[in-house]
C-alpha cells in the first residue's frame, strides 16, 4: 500500500490507494476481475496488490468470463453492494457489452427507479507498447452514447484517486478509464479522502488565445503543445475534461467563449468520437463567437499497427496538437 504523504506517486499507486480507502470506508465495496487477488499477483500490473490480503474475499480473482462476472457485478450492485469490476483491457469490454449497456445502464430506468446499479467498471487501454490491433482501443464513445452510463478518465494520479472514489460513491454505473502509460508515470500525490464527483472538468492550464479540450493522453499532448506555443507567444488554455459523460458544458463553454478557438484531442479514432460531440456543442452554443472552426484530433482511422514506426504515426502527438492550434489561429 502506498503512502499518501509522499509528494508524488504513480497513477497505479493512486488507484490502488483509492480502492483501498473505499474498501476500508465501506464494506459493500468489492473488487472482481481476472488475477486481481494477491495469490494471482494483485492484477496483471499489480494495481490491486495488497487488497485481498487486507480485505479477504472481497477481492476475487475470476475465471476468464467477462459476461459472467460483469453480470455478477450488476446483480450484486442491485442487491446493495458497490462492486468494482476490472476488465483487464478495454478491448475485452466487447465480450460483455450486453451486461453493461442493456442492464447496468438501463435497470434504474426500466424498474422505474426501484433498483439502481452502483457499479464501477475499471479498464485500461492505450497504444504505444506495440501490443497490436486488439489491445489498445478506446471505445468510450460507445458508453457515452448509452443513457444511464457515466464515463470518466483521469490524466494524473491525484485526479485518478478522487475520481475513482467519486465513481465508487456514485449511485449509477461508471466506466473509469486508465491510460496504460499514465499508470506508471509519477505525479503529485492525492490528498487521501478527496472525492471528485463525476461530471466536473478541470482547467489544467489557463490561457487566453486558444482552448485545448482533452482527456487522458490528449491532456499530456495538450499541455506539451501549450508549453511549446507559450514560447511562441500563444497563450493556450487546456481543459482536462475528466468526465466524458456527462460533459461539463459549463467549463468547456466558459473556456471557449473566452478564447474563441478550440482544439479537441483524444486518443480514440477521430471520426465519430467524443470529439465530434464536443465540437458540435461548441459550435451550437458559440456560433458567431468562434474565430475559427473547432479542430479535432484523434488517432488515425485504422486498427493499431504493431510496428513501432506505424504505431507512432497512428497516435496523435504534441506536434499535431500544436499544428491544429495554429490552424485555429489562421
Amino acid at each position, binding site marked *: 500500500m502506498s503512502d499518501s504523504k509522499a509528494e508524488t506517486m504513480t497513477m497505479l499507486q493512486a488507484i490502488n490507494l483509492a480502492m483501498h480507502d473505499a474498501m476500508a470506508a465501506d464494506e459493500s465495496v468489492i473488487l472482481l476481475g481476472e488475477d486481481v487477488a494477491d495469490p494471482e499477483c494483485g492484477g496483471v500490473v499489480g494495481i490491486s496488490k495488497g487488497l485481498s490480503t487486507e480485505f479477504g474475499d*472481497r477481492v476475487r480473482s475470476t475465471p476468464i468470463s*467477462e459476461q459472467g462476472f460483469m453480470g455478477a*457485478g450488476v*446483480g450484486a450492485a*442491485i*442487491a446493495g453492494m458497490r462492486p468494482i469490476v476490472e476488465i483487464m483491457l478495454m478491448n475485452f469490454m466487447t465480450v460483455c457489452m*450486453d451486461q453493461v449497456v442493456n*442492464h447496468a445502464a438501463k435497470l434504474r430506468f426500466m*424498474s422505474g427507479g*426501484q433498483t439502481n446499479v452502483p457499479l464501477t467498471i475499471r479498464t485500461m487501454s492505450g497504444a504505444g507498447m506495440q501490443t497490436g490491433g486488439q489491445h489498445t482501443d478506446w471505445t468510450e464513445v460507445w458508453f457515452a452514447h448509452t443513457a444511464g452510463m457515466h464515463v470518466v478518465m483521469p490524466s494524473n494520479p491525484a485526479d485518478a484517486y478522487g475520481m475513482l472514489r467519486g465513481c465508487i460513491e456514485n449511485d449509477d454505473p461508471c466506466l473509469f478509464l486508465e491510460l496504460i502509460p499514465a499508470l506508471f508515470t509519477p505525479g503529485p500525490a492525492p490528498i487521501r479522502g478527496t472525492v471528485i464527483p463525476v461530471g466536473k472538468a478541470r482547467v489544467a492550464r489557463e490561457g487566453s488565445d486558444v482552448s485545448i479540450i482533452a482527456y487522458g493522453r490528449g491532456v499530456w499532448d495538450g499541455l506539451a503543445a501549450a508549453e511549446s506555443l507559450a514560447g511562441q507567444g500563444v497563450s493556450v488554455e487546456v481543459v482536462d475534461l475528466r468526465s466524458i459523460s456527462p460533459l461539463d458544458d459549463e467549463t468547456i463553454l466558459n473556456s471557449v467563449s473566452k478564447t474563441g478557438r478550440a482544439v479537441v484531442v483524444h486518443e480514440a479514432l477521430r471520426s465519430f468520437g467524443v470529439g465530434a460531440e464536443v465540437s458540435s456543442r461548441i459550435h451550437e452554443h458559440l456560433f458567431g463567437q468562434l474565430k475559427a472552426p473547432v479542430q479535432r484530433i484523434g488517432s488515425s482511422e485504422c486498427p493499431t499497427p504493431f510496428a513501432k514506426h506505424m504505431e507512432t504515426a497512428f497516435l496523435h502527438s504534441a506536434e499535431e496538437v500544436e499544428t491544429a492550434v495554429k490552424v485555429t489561429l489562421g
Partner: protein
Amino acid sequence: MSTALDKDIHLEMYRKVSLIKLNDDRLQSEILAGRLVMPYYSTRGQEIIPSAVSMHLTKEDYIVTIYRGIHDSVAKGVPLPDLWAELAGRVTGTCKGKGGPMHITHPESGVMVTTGIVGSSIPIGVGLALASQYKKDGRVTVANFGDGASNIGSFHEGLNLASVWKLPVVFVCQNNRYAEHTSYEKGTSCGQIADRAASYNMPGVRVDGNDPEAMYQAASEAIDRARSGGGPTLIEAMTFRFCGHNLGDKSSYIPADEMEEAKANDPVPRYQRWLVEQGYASEADIESIDRANKEVIDSARDYAYSSEYADVSEIKRDVYAYDLD
C-alpha cells in the same frame, strides 16, 4: 404422480397455478380485445414450475426472470394491481409504466430483474447470490431461463462462476422444447440440458416441470442445498408452451401431434383432476379457488385501467440518480 405431499401444500400450490393460468387467460383476452397493447409472451402451460419453486422461497429470496416470466413474478408474489398497472403503462405500475411486460421489477417481492436478453438472467442471478454470500443474509436466488438460453455464452460463464464460488443460487431452465421457432434438437447438441451441469461440477436434474410433486421436490432439494451452503444446482424443468412464442404466433413450426399430445396433458386441468382424485379438493373447491382468483385479477385490471399515466417528464427521471433537465 408419486407420493402425495400434504393437502395444504397442494392447495397453496394450486392457488398459484390457478392464478397464473387465469391471469394469462385474462391478459390474452384483454390484448385480443384491444384494451391492452403490449408484446406478450404467454406462460400458458408453464404454470406448475414457478408455483412449485416459489413454495420454497421467502419474500426476501431473489428471483430473476425473462420476458416470458409473468408466471414467475405472480408466483413470487408481485401484487397483481401493480403488475397490471405496469402492463397498462400506468404510473401506478411496478415500474411507473417505463418497464412494461419484459422488465417487471418488484424488489419488495424479490423480483429483482426481468430481462429481454436471452441468457442474461443467469450472470445477474449469480451476482445477487454473491451479494447474499457476502452479507450472509440467508437468501437464495433463483435464476429462470429457457431451453434456448442454454446455448448462449452467459449460461456457461454464469454456471461456472456460481460453482467456483459455491453460491446460493438455483438455475431453473424451463425447457418448453422451443426457442422462438427453433426446436430443441435443432439448436441444442446434448440430449438433456441437465447433463450440462457436469461441466460445472454441479448437481443437475431433469424433472417433469408439469408434475407438481416432482417439481416441488426438485426445487426443495436445490433450494435447501443453496440455503445450507451446498452451492448451486441446475434444474431442467420439462414443460411446454401452448400459445406460441408470442401472442399471434400460430406455432406452425410445432408438429400437430406434438401439440395435440401436449394439450392432452395440459398440466392445469390435469392437476385439478388429480386434486379431486386425491381427495384434496372437490370440484367445487377448485371452482371456488378459481373464482376468488378471478376476482383478484378483475380488480387488478380495473385498478390498472382507472390509474393515471405518468407525466411524460418521467422520461427524464430514473436515467440517473438525478433528474435530467
